[in-house]
C-alpha cells in the first residue's frame, strides 16, 4: 500500500470515527433528555397523587371538625334551649308560654345556622377573608384572646382545592397558637406583592426556639400541604417574642 493510500485511509477512518463520536454525543443527549422527561413525569404523577391524598385528608379533617362543632353546638346551645323550653312548657303562666315561643325561635335560628355549616359547598360559598373573620370572632367570643384582621382581599379568587388547604392550615395554625402560645393578641395580615400573596398569622404568645426539632409532625404536615398547592409555609419564633407564620401563594 502506498504512502498516499495510507494517508487517505487514515483520514477516512479518522473521519468515520469522528462522525460516529459526534453522532453518539447527540444520541446520548437525546437519551438523557428522554430519561429526564420520564423522571419528571413520575415526579408529577407522585405529586398529583400526594395532592389528591392531601385534599382528601383535608376534607376529612374539616368534616371531623364540623361534626365536633355540631356536637358541641347541639349539647351546649340547642340542648340547653330545648331544656329551657321544656321547663317553661310545664308552667301554665302566659309569660312562660311567650318565653317558650322565644326559645323555639332561637332554636330554629340556631338549627338554620348549623345546617349551613353542614352544607358540603360551604367552602365554595365562603371567601377566605370571611372564614378567617368567623374564626377570629369565634376565638375572641370564647375569651381566649383579642384578635384582629387586616386584609386587602387578595385571596378572593382562590380555587376550591387551594381554599380547602388554606382553610385547614389557618385553622391548624390558630389552634396551635391558642393551645401552645397562650397569646393576648392574634393578628392576621393578608397582603399582596408583585410575585406572591401572603397571609401572616402573628401572635404575641410565649414563642419557641425554632432551632429545636419538634417531636410532632404538625409543622411539617402544614408545610407539605402548602407545597401541594404550590405555596410556601414559613415559621419564625423566639422564646418570649411571639410567633409569626407566613403562608405564601404565587400571585
Amino acid at each position, binding site marked *: 500500500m502506498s504512502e*498516499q493510500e495510507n*494517508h487517505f485511509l487514515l483520514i477516512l477512518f*479518522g473521519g468515520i470515527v469522528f462522525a460516529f463520536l*459526534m453522532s453518539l454525543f*447527540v444520541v446520548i*443527549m437525546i437519551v438523557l433528555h428522554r430519561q*429526564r422527561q420520564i423522571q*419528571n413525569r413520575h415526579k408529577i404523577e407522585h405529586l398529583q397523587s400526594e395532592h389528591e391524598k392531601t385534599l382528601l385528608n383535608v376534607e376529612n379533617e374539616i368534616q371531623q371538625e364540623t361534626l365536633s362543632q355540631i356536637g358541641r353546638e347541639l349539647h351546649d346551645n340547642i340542648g340547653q334551649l330545648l331544656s329551657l323550653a321544656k321547663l317553661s312548657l310545664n308552667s301554665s303562666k302566659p309569660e312562660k308560654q311567650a318565653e317558650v315561643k322565644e326559645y323555639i325561635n332561637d332554636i330554629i335560628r340556631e338549627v338554620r345556622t348549623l345546617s349551613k355549616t353542614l352544607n358540603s359547598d360551604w367552602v365554595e360559598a365562603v371567601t377566605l377573608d370571611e372564614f378567617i373573620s368567623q374564626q377570629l370572632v369565634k376565638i375572641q367570643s370564647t375569651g381566649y384572646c383579642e384578635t384582629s384582621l387586616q386584609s386587602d382581599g387578595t385571596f378572593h379568587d382562590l380555587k376550591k382545592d387551594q381554599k380547602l388547604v388554606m382553610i385547614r392550615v389557618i385553622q391548624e395554625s390558630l389552634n396551635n397558637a391558642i393551645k401552645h402560645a397562650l397569646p393576648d393578641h392574634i393578628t392576621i395580615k393578608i397582603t399582596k406583592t408583585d410575585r406572591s400573596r401572603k397571609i401572616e398569622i402573628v401572635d404575641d404568645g410565649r414563642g419557641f426556639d425554632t432551632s429545636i426539632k419538634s417531636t410532632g409532625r404538625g409543622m411539617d404536615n402544614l408545610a407539605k400541604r402548602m407545597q401541594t398547592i404550590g405555596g410556601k409555609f414559613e415559621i419564625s419564633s423566639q422564646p418570649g417574642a411571639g410567633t409569626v407564620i407566613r403562608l405564601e401563594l404565587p400571585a
Partner: protein
Amino acid sequence: MKQGHLELFYDKLDYYHFSLVGLAFAGLFGYAFLSSEHRRNQSLKLSLGILIVVGFYELLAVFVSSQKIVNLWVFNIFNSHVAAVLFFLLLRSFLKRESHKKTVHILIVLFLLISMVLHLTGIIHYNDSGEYILFLNTVLILGCCGLFFIELITLDDFLNIDPLKEFSFWASTAVMFYFSSSFMIYISYRYLYTYHLDIYYMVWLIPRSMTLLCNLLLCLGIYSPLIKDKYQLEIVHV
C-alpha cells in the same frame, strides 16, 4: 471588468454557489411571507442573516479569485468573523438562562478582541489561510453548543418539548457538526494542498457539503412556520 475575467467568474461557479445563492433567495422569499410575529423571532432573523452572508461571501470569493487576486481575505473576514458572530448569536437565541446568554456575549467580545490583537500585532495576516482564527471561533462556538446541550438536559423549560422536533436542537447539532468537521479539514488544507493534492480535492467536499446541509436546515427553519400555517404540519418547531 475584463471579458476574460468575467468568463472565468462564470466558469468557476458550480452547483455549490448556485445552491447557496438559491438558499439565500429562498430564505429571503420565505421570510417575506412570515407573519409579523415570526419575523420578530430572533432565530429566524439570524438564520436569514447567515444564509445571505454565506451566499454573498461565496460569490465574492469566486469573483475576487476570477480577478486573479488571492481571495483568502474574503473567507477570513466573512466566514471566520461575520458568519461566526452570526452563528454565536444564533446559538445565543436558543439559550434560556440569562447567565449563559451573557457568557455567549463575553465569548463574542473575547473572540473579536483576540482576533484584533492577533491581526494588529502581525501574528496573523488577513490574507493567510486563517487556521488560528478558525481554531478560536470553532472552540468558542462548540462551547456555545455545549451550553445549549447542558440547558437541554438540565432546564425544566425543555422538559415539555421533543428535541427531535425543535429547530434549536437541529440547528445546534448542525452547527456543531459543521464547525467541528470543517475545522479539522480547514487546518489540514495547507498540508494536503502541498503534499496530497488529490486527497485535498476529496476532503474539500466535506465542508462544502456541511455548509449546504447547515444552510438547508436554516432555510427549512424559516419555512417551517409557513408550512405549519398552510398545511397544519409542523416539521420543526421554531
